[in-house]
């Protein structure tokens, strides 16, 4: 497991882009085991919320599977 911290910039269904402080963007997929639902992601994107995602590399995909999503601060 790895943790990524950053801003939710783009949301599509249960997938979202997370831009970290170094400027790099990662594609994350909300796991079915995560304590969050796809419809909650849109609000995080609108608020430009800073989140911490606990995730693992997705098998055979260029992306990460999120098991836990913590909202650190909402800037709007």
């Amino acid at each position: 497991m790895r943790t990524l911290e950053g801003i939710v910039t783009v949301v599509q269904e249960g997938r979202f882009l997370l831009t970290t402080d170094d400027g790099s963007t990662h594609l994350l997929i909300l796991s079915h085991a995560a304590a969050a639902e796809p419809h909650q992601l849109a609000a995080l994107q609108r608020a430009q919320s800073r989140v911490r995602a606990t995730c693992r590399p997705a098998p055979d995909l260029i992306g990460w599977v999120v098991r836990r999503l913590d909202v650190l601060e909402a800037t709007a």
Partner: protein
Amino acid sequence: MSVTAERSVQAVHVHPRARDYPGSFLDGVIPNESELTCGTRIEPGKSYGFFTDTTLCIGCKACEVACKEWNALPADSVGFTGMSYDNTGGLSANTWRHVAFIEKRGPTGTRQTDQDAFQSGWLMMSDVCKHCHNAPCLEACPTGALFRTEFDTVVVQQDICNGCGYCVPACPFGVVDLNPLDGKAHKCTLCYDRLKGGLEPACAKACPTDSIQFGEVPELQARAEQRVEQLQSLGVAGAHLYGAPGGEGATGGLGHLNAFFLLTERPETYGLPPAPTRPANRVAPGLLAGLATMAGLALGALALLGGGRR
């Protein structure tokens, strides 16, 4: 705008409204932008779809990339498939557009070693969800997650999908797929969010040859008929439509396909079923056969038990 610039705008048949936006940088989204990019104003209540002219496809995969970019879909099947130039493989939960590369075979079934000048031995087709008029996936969905939108397209609502997977075998084209990571069904939405914003779907907008054309379905069907006539007059005898009303691909109660294709070979060559059907067609015969079997077994049991008592 100068006279020269005005002439150049007219020369390439740009929509008159495009003159309202001469700059490279815009303050915001252009209202009804699809009018400028594909000549279609997107309005709820009308039927929209794709006409894919495979004779124009050059296999650039711009549609695949545009789809992945807009829908934030991850790159999948990381590695080399070894399947000619097709490293995508097929449609999946993470790939909603797939450009098929088919190398034509000679009459004996082997690859041709000589060819006429300027002729291509390759068939290319950008495959996608067909957004069927009578969509089997929608009929099979027990939760109502799959629904028909105000633009006559078929979309999966992610917050309602419970991942049962009934839609997967129901689709006669093998389009819908479950993602084991999030446990939900995924497929092309015909860029539902873009349509709501007055934007042309990403794949059609990115297509450099207009092989993928977006518009109102009746208008696209008329345009496609004209294109078939044009190709046949030029000597392409095999040009025909797949998914147009009453034609090949629109069989088995599917009605018609909102995303239909112009093909030059048999549909099997492109990996399309020649006569797709709705699984719902088999419910009544299956139910009747089950009831008849039950009745037959009951009669047999009665005859055996009745005979034993005598």
